[in-house]
């Protein structure tokens, strides 16, 4: 299986970014026969245990595997990517709450897109996702790589 994490900027001071890299490394251990890649543009971290491939974000367009996203900006950039078999968005924030002047279709085209599966990362997001959009594929906190691995079996 081909698995990719699409993270545009990685900052070593950002705890969430470090957890994502840790998760990638653990995933490589859990799934040694899978191709696991990080698609990235700015890498401001030192990952001495790196077991995954690193490619520029522009390569993700032609990546035929399962691609994970972690923010709205990334999923918008990937909207026209023809290759990924599935796109999975980790919902960390309630982005639609920030500005209610956006047209409904803007959010609808992201969260109700048939090509995009959602994963909630906390209880509030999980509840709101079910109320406002669709049932998340799973609820995973702290980028738990065993649970991500289980989700991959469902896809």
């Amino acid at each position, binding site marked *: 299986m081909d698995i990719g994490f699409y993270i545009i900027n990685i900052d070593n001071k950002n705890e969430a970014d470090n957890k994502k890299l840790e998760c990638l490394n653990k995933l490589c251990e859990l799934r040694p026969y899978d191709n696991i890649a990080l698609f990235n543009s700015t890498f401001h971290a030192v990952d001495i245990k790196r077991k995954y491939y690193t490619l520029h974000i522009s390569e993700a367009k032609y990546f035929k595997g399962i691609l994970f996203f972690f923010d709205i900006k990334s999923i918008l950039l990937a909207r026209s990517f023809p290759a990924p078999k599935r796109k999975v968005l980790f919902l960390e924030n309630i982005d639609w709450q920030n500005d209610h002047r956006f*047209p409904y279709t803007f959010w609808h085209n992201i969260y109700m897109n048939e090509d995009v599966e959602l994963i909630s990362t906390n209880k509030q997001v999980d509840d709101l996702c079910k109320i406002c959009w669709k049932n998340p594929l799973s609820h995973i906190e702290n980028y738990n790589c065993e649970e991500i691995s289980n989700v991959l079996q469902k896809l």
Partner: protein
Amino acid sequence: MKKTILLHDASNQTSKNINKSMIDLTHESHNIILNTIHGNLFNIYQQHKPSYIFLNASEYTQEFQDFLMDHAGDTNIFLFIENNIDNKSLIEFWNSRPVKIIANIQYKNLYNNCVAVYDKMYNEQIFNNKKLNRNDKIAVMLSSDNSKNNTIEEILYPNNFDRKVVVFNNPEFQSPVNLGILNASDLSIVLNSFDGLIDIDQQLYLEAQACNIKYYDIQTVNPKEAIINNNFKTLNANLNDYTYLKFTTEQILPNIKA
């Protein structure tokens, strides 16, 4: 030679829909100019000499006033009255000029020369039953007056309520289930894909009926009780009587000569 009709491209939905109907009905028999004519009215008049000019009171400017002073007798001027006009001297001025008024029914008595009167209308090309699969959610169309929206607080997240309720169309209303603004075609999709509708201002009953969505009756009970008791309003208007096309055909076109 074809006569020219000048339509002001006003921003409100009623005018946009009537303009569309005008274009559909007269584009073969007349030359049509559709333009946001602010700052351009005298220029367009000099260049094209339109026989019929449609202006909007809701976007009335000194330019419109000057044009009415100078040219009210030279061409046929129609003025849409969409809102209540507080300025009595302005109403007197319009009543003293050969200006044809197209008024919302609430304000028709204020004007001497009403050639057409409109009530609630809907666009049948956008709002119709698309027979889509419906989800289990309830849509709330908020009022622009936030004090009227308090009645729905108890059915919204994070309050515990066993139905999924989301709200639209008031960016000032602070709620994590406020999903933003709907334009007409998005509203049509919502009315065709949600299970029920709570319409705080009771303005969307024609659109709701056309899309066949359950319309909760919140005039007699509060929204929570209406949902729990499945208290729906029976919508049985003859929809064909409320289309923009019918209004334009029957009330405006008789004033337009080929």
